[in-house]
């Protein structure tokens, strides 16, 4: 309850994400039709039987949205996991070891950061084929560098804390120091980054799908946007095939962003402060505040 009041945005995000996850998990039971099942004319407008109409293959949009949530979430979470594990490990190693290791790893990270990601994606996906695992791996590999940077910076700062230096001077080994002092400190940050990474991965997935480089047999929200474009939903004024998947993606990523920001604020309450505001102190009605 308290958390709710403190981070209303985060709570809203969590609720949205929760709802989407539940819908996705229950999709096979909730979906009214088959995801390949033609249930009416192509681009049939919304009707009581099909509240969001049919797509360019005469498939029920509600069904597609429900099924698409599964893929989008799977890609989001799996890719974020890769990014978190890789980025966390590399950031931690670079920040803690320092020196040459740090320089080497950061050089790699810098390189990964300047790689134009969408073209790389295009090339890798085109050359090595399209599969769900491929898409997840590519997104994960594209996302870790940002994480690694932040984790490294944080590790560097923890490393300089007196309690870490003290642990070292009493003769504690690196493994021990990392495990007991550094990692626990970095975990909340990593969690925050992970939440953002989920959102980002979902966004990148829509790009991959839009370019037709996604897994051909998986229906994701990105794929629905692509279908709408390829199926000329715009010229055919079939807004019901365009608007819902975009809004769905937006809500999903927004929920991640909201949660991430709440976590961030929780970790760093300084984000809330500031000296300047249009409002200044209040004057108590004379004597009123005294007792």
């Amino acid at each position, binding site marked *: 309850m308290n958390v709710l009041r403190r981070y209303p945005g985060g709570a809203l995000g969590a609720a949205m994400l929760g709802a989407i996850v539940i819908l996705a998990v229950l999709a096979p039971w909730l979906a009214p039709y088959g995801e390949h099942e033609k249930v009416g004319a192509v681009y049939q407008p919304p009707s009581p039987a099909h509240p969001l109409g049919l797509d360019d293959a005469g498939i029920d949009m509600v069904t597609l949205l429900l099924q698409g949530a599964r893929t989008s979430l799977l890609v989001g979470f799996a890719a974020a996991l890769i990014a978190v594990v890789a980025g966390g490990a590399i950031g931690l190693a670079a920040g803690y070891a320092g020196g040459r290791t740090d320089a080497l790893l950061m050089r790699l990270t810098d390189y990964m950061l300047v790689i134009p990601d969408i073209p790389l994606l295009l090339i890798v996906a085109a050359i090595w084929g399209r599969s769900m695992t491929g898409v997840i791996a590519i997104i994960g590999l594209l996302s870790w560098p940002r994480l690694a940077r932040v984790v490294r910076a944080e590790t560097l700062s923890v490393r300089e804390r007196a*309690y870490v230096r003290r642990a070292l001077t*009493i003769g504690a080994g690196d493994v021990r120091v990392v495990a007991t002092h550094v990692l626990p*400190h970095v975990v909340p940050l990593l969690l925050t980054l992970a939440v953002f990474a989920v959102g980002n991965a979902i966004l990148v997935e829509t790009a991959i799908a839009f370019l037709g480089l996604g897994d051909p047999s998986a229906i994701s929200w990105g794929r629905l946007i692509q279908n709408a474009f390829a199926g000329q939903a715009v010229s055919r004024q079939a807004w019901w095939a365009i608007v819902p998947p975009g809004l769905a993606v937006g809500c999903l990523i927004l929920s991640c962003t909201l949660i991430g920001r709440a976590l961030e604020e929780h970790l760093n309450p300084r984000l809330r402060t500031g000296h300047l505001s249009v409002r200044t102190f209040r004057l108590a009605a004379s004597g009123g505040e005294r007792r």
Partner: protein
Amino acid sequence: MSLLDVEDLATHFPLRGRPRRVVRAVDGVSFTVGPGELLALVGESGSGKTTTAQTVLRMADPTAGTIRFGGQDITTLPRRRLKAVRRRMQVVFQDPYESLDPRFRIGRSVAEPLAVHGVGTRAERREMVLSALERAGLAPAAAFAERFPHELSGGQRQRAAIAAALVLGPDLLIADEPVSMLDVSVRAGVLALFDELRAAGLGILMITHDLSTTARHADRVAVMYLGRIVEEGPAAEVIANPVHPYTRALVAAVPRAGEERRPIPILPGEPSDPSAVPAGCRFHPRCPIAHEDCKRHDPALTPVAHEDGMRHDPGSTPVASGRHRAACPVSNPPAVPLEEDQCAPSRPR
């Protein structure tokens, strides 16, 4: 026999970029700390006090010189074998807010050294932790052990950090500005604790820039300037009769309680830069009494004739001691030839 014996210690840090330059943070420092002795290392910010301590702790690598601890040369001891030494040499940092892991209860922080060194059983450790906390003045120890750092005041935190340093029963404590971040009202308590520990035989190397503290608690004081010790000797004597112009400025600058306004000698120029150490006497660019020779000759520490000391502060009690040395030939002409016993390591009172 002295506990810690540092000779000609130098620690340089290479700077990035060209031309290659080094920061001569510590540049030829010698001192000793005996059991039960408190040596205060004072000096302006950036003079290399912390670096000296870090080097002694082998957290920074010495460029030259030797560090002997309990008679053993630890200057180049490999990390593995350092562990045994570290058990006997503990450290307390300046910032009481950062020296305890905020996620650990005090008890666990204090017990960490025991865990690292695999000392005792669980029960034994608990005993040791509680007694350390009590020694550090945190009573009831059992209650404090259960608290988190944020539930303690600054002074209490610093005591907890000291307890963690004491739990292994070390011979030497290195304290880097242990009270400068504490409120006036609690400083005295922590310093009194040091006095107690010292009485029990613990050698302490304390870094500080607070001369009034030094005068009250230290046996001996070493004044650092730009990586060197410029004056060294029994605390009372050095503060009463500062010889080196830098020490004099330092002493004069200290505000004294209850005193009325008085003129302050001001050192000209900016704090010095250890990556560009001036030739000759390091202090000469800011020295009010520098002359030509100072630009060429880098003076060594030489014993102070106490008559000389008396001349500067006639009101003070003359303390005749060859252990007071300074590195300024101008204010301190080498009247007394160097004798062997004067170079011998100083002993605790």
